[in-house]
């Protein structure tokens, strides 16, 4: 679906002239019509990332974070879903752009790393061949140049013996190596935007930190904007500059990382922070799970999407949580919260909850 409204309103400067962050997503919505009803996978998501910065999108399964990423990349099948809103990448709008024009940006200006490197690599092609595909399609490059580029990329992502590994098949590599190959593949054209969709979820714990560190190193080297999708708040604290929290296809809180960790305000964020297992507590108390299950994306609650699981909704007068979806409002500059609770009350709750954790959050 393309937008019917004009891109810029009368009286305002033309869209391209406005000062925009490198990547700017405005009011993005992705809806899948199904036999059971319309799936609201993503509703009204706005976010932005500057070059060289890392934005983390945090949320549990089904919160719409992966769909958001795929919508930015133009990987949502337009025949199966409607995508609306705006995605501005370096002053080019991608949602209304023809498919083939977006394809030319994919792998060149923006690239993506996926969750499971085993299933995301083609089992029948050699690592080198898969690596160079994006380079060969976007640049004019000879086969032998492409091969040396592939070896160079494998060396950069820290694969030992790249001259031999370039001829290996994916099944001959370990999980961590496969993810390094995925990273090399995504970065081969030095994209300005890198989206990493749970890049460490399928990996051993010992390898996870290496992969995250690798992404950060490569990012610093070429001033890449990174979107890191994860449900692992530990990773976020280490590398992200900003964090947005998604729930039920909506943004529920957005803040700089430090701010979000020490002064979370949305009860869902609070729940995420306290559900990280803590070794400094008694075994029975190590986990504080959020009660209940995520909402169905077909029948979203009428009011706040988090209301059915929220333990503080009784503090809001008139039952507003059940009837009206709260707006995403700035509580501080740069800190947006979607919650009906008054700001002071939220801070009070957060202080109580975080204060009860020995040694504070994180």
């Amino acid at each position, binding site marked *: 679906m393309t937008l019917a409204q004009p891109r810029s309103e009368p009286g305002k400067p033309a869209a391209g002239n406005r000062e925009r962050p490198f990547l700017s997503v405005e009011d993005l919505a992705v809806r899948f019509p199904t036999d059971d009803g319309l799936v609201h996978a993503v509703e009204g998501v706005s976010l932005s990332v500057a070059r060289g910065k890392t934005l983390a999108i945090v949320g549990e399964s089904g919160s719409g974070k992966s769909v958001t990423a795929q919508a930015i990349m133009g*990987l949502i099948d337009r025949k199966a879903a409607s995508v609306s809103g705006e995605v501005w990448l370096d002053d080019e709008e991608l949602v209304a752009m023809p498919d083939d024009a977006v394809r030319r940006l994919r792998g060149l200006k923006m690239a993506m790393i996926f969750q499971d490197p085993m299933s995301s690599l*083609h089992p029948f092609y050699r690592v080198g061949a898969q690596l160079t*595909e*994006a380079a060969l399609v976007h640049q004019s490059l000879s086969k032998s140049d492409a091969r040396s580029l592939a070896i160079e990329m494998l060396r950069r992502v820290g694969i030992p013996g790249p001259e031999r590994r370039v001829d290996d098949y994916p099944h001959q590599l370990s999980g961590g190596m496969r993810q390094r190959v995925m990273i090399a593949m995504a970065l081969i054209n030095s994209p300005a935007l890198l989206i990493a969709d749970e890049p460490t979820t399928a990996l051993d714990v010992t390898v996870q930190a290496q992969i995250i560190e690798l992404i950060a190193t490569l990012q610093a080297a070429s001033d890449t904007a990174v979107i890191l999708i994860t449900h692992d708040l530990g990773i976020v604290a280490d590398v992200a500059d900003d964090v947005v929290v998604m729930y039920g296809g909506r943004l529920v809180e957005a803040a700089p990382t430090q701010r979000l960790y020490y002064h979370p305000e949305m009860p869902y964020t609070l729940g995420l922070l306290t559900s990280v297992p803590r070794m400094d507590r008694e075994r029975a108390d190590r986990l504080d799970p959020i009660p209940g299950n995520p909402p169905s994306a077909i029948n979203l609650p009428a009011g706040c999407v988090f209301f059915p699981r929220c333990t503080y909704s009784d503090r809001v007068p008139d039952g507003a949580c059940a009837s009206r979806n709260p707006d995403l409002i700035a509580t501080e500059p740069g800190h947006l919260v979607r919650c009906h609770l008054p700001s002071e009350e939220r801070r009070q709750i957060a202080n109580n909850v975080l204060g009860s954790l020995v040694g504070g959050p994180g």
Partner: protein
Amino acid sequence: MVLLLLLLTVAVFFLFNLLPFDPARLTCGKVCTPELLEANRHRLGLDLPVLQQYLNFVTGIFTGRTLGADTASPIVCSAPCLGYSFLRHADVTSLIARALPVTFWLAIGGFIVWMTIGLVGGVVAALRRGKWQDRTLLTIALIGYSMPSFFLGLILIFFVILTWHLLDFPSASAVQAGPFANPGKFIGTMLLPWIVIAVLNAAFYVRLTRNQVLETLNEDYVRTARAKGLPERTVVVKHALRAGLTPIVTAAGLDIAGLMGGAIITESLFSLPGMGVLAVGSVVQSDLPVITGITLVAGFFIISMNLIVDLLYGVLDPRVRVS
């Protein structure tokens, strides 16, 4: 594989020995005296114990044999000897050697036509899933699949040859001469048989390819290929189709092996002297040596194609390769 073929000879040989036919009686003619019958039986080696007959048969394949060596008119059947047909007065090996090339060219040509149609049609249908192109292709495939080949063959003969005079009547000699003697005449003869063979099989391969591609299009690595910004055609052919090729190759290998045993209806329709026609003729006349020979040759093709398909797995899928 050798063991399988050996088992096949045992099965075929003893099965036919159980049949209530007396080959000697069949060769004896109208005026048959008990003496003549006994003489024929001796010439055919049928007076020997069954096990000895079998051993003679198997060794004959490798070393050749002489039937009725102690009679006035011995018949020399040189290796590889698959037996001797007294009905046709020819050894089975040379009968098959004449029929096999005809069937071979019929199968190979048909194979090329049906695989081309099947793969292209299947990919197009998968890409346009649910659209009119997909529905049209599936409908045509259904019609092709349910069209009896004798009916399609007759229609083609009636219109293309009899009504429109686009092609000459099939020439058996042109086929037996092979494609290189007179390419024009060869193709002119084989075109309609190829189409008849291809239509039935292409229908199946359109569906198979479509389903394979639709399945692999949902794989993560296809999403990766799209994320690289590859053109859609590269994504579908190089990534999706390539990944779904294994079952298609399996089916194709077995189908072509099956065809080597003879395409009875197509060969009969177009008077092509291939394995199918030979088999039918032999069955009608209870010409057991020829039936045995054809069964063995057909079995040989099916077993070898199975082996080739297994080897192809290793080529197609690096994970299968033994390192």
